[in-house]
């Protein structure tokens, strides 16, 4: 692809199967499908262990995206959709997940997923998604205690980063690292709207700011907003970040600096599938297992 036509915003879609978890005979196979505003995630679990994960861009139709991401998760597993005992849909587009047996809010799923990914010490989860930021407090079992959803618009979220990547012509995966290459933190951008932030960023470039400095100003503004949100629910250890921006080192580092608190680093998700971006789908698949076991035991007790 020529430099001219390069799509800087395009983040990596992927699909991962963990062969050693291959289901045999009598396992419980469940799945979670999380249709977000920007990305769709699916996770297949065998007896509550992640077996397959897929992440792709959400298209114009939520139901098509749900179908596609689920098909992708099934690829290379030898499973068919009908082999899955229970599917839970979640996320912004959860009402449009056609194959789901049940739907749950993404809040419950993210808390459950984070508890699975990082363990019982997680108390605060910051989910930075494509179009909003959510702060969730949970107990040692991953049960939601408090939940705060903000905000009016998409600045300071994944979509905002995509816009900025295109504007500055920097591959989206490199933005976090690049934003840390400033000698001194600039003032944060003032705008909280993607459309205006774009104009503001262009203005800064024209004034001779380096791309690194513009990035730093933008990410600093994002981190401040996240901090404010966390203060409202009360930020307790351990803190984790889920959603697409969990990959953004520029945000994470700034957030940690402002809070004076480290976040738990993500596990090696490229190997074990415990991807913080897929926390919602993983949580949904875990709920699917519990719900399936519950329906089965009710069925049995009725004889």
């Amino acid at each position, binding site marked *: 692809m020529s430099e001219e036509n390069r799509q800087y915003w395009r983040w990596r879609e992927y699909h991962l199967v963990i062969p050693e978890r291959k289901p045999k005979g009598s396992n419980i196979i469940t799945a979670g499908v999380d249709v977000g505003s920007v990305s769709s995630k699916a996770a297949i679990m065998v007896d509550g262990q992640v077996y397959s994960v897929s992440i792709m861009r959400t298209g114009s139709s939520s139901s098509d995206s749900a179908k596609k991401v689920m098909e992708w998760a099934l690829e290379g597993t030898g499973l068919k959709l009908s082999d899955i005992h229970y599917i839970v849909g979640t996320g912004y587009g959860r009402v449009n997940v056609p194959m789901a047996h049940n739907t*749950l809010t993404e809040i419950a799923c993210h808390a459950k997923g984070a508890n699975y990914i990082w363990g019982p010490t997680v108390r605060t989860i910051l989910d930075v998604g494509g179009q909003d930021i959510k702060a969730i407090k949970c107990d040692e079992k991953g049960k939601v205690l408090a*939940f705060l*959803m903000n905000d009016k618009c998409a600045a300071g979220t994944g979509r905002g980063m995509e816009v900025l990547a295109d504007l500055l012509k920097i591959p989206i995966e490199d933005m976090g690292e690049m934003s840390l290459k400033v000698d001194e933190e600039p003032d944060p951008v003032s705008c909280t709207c993607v459309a205006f932030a774009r104009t503001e960023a262009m203005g800064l470039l024209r004034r001779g700011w380096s791309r690194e400095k513009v990035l730093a100003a933008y990410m600093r503004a994002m981190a401040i907003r996240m901090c404010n949100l966390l203060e409202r629910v009360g930020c307790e250890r351990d803190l984790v970040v889920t959603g697409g921006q969990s990959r953004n080192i520029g945000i994470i580092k700034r957030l940690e600096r402002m809070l004076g608190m480290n976040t738990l680093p993500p596990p090696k998700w490229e190997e074990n599938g415990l991807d913080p971006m897929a926390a919602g789908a993983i949580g949904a698949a875990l709920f699917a297992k519990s719900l399936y076991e519950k329906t089965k035991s009710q069925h049995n007790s009725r004889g």
Partner: protein
Amino acid sequence: MRLIITYYGYMDGSGEYYIVVDSEKCNGCGECITQCPKQVLEITRTIVDLEEQLVAAVKEEHRKNIKYTCSACKPEKATPPCVSACGRKAITCIWKPKVP
């Protein structure tokens, strides 16, 4: 314990404004819905400890519009109707204007 507190609202240069629903107190009666002049609220089905529970929530389409939709009811002079509608005190409203 099924304590889940949900904050719907925003925080910006003008201050912070949240409509807060306490699911432990809410019994899903729906009285708040009838009192809301802008039809912002609805009763949703959530699963807590694998049991279904009905709880009041801000409709998905209003979640990013609270600044505008709910501005008339800001608790500056009177208690917002959704708050006074609830006999169980499950809904509260936080409005903290930013002092310049």
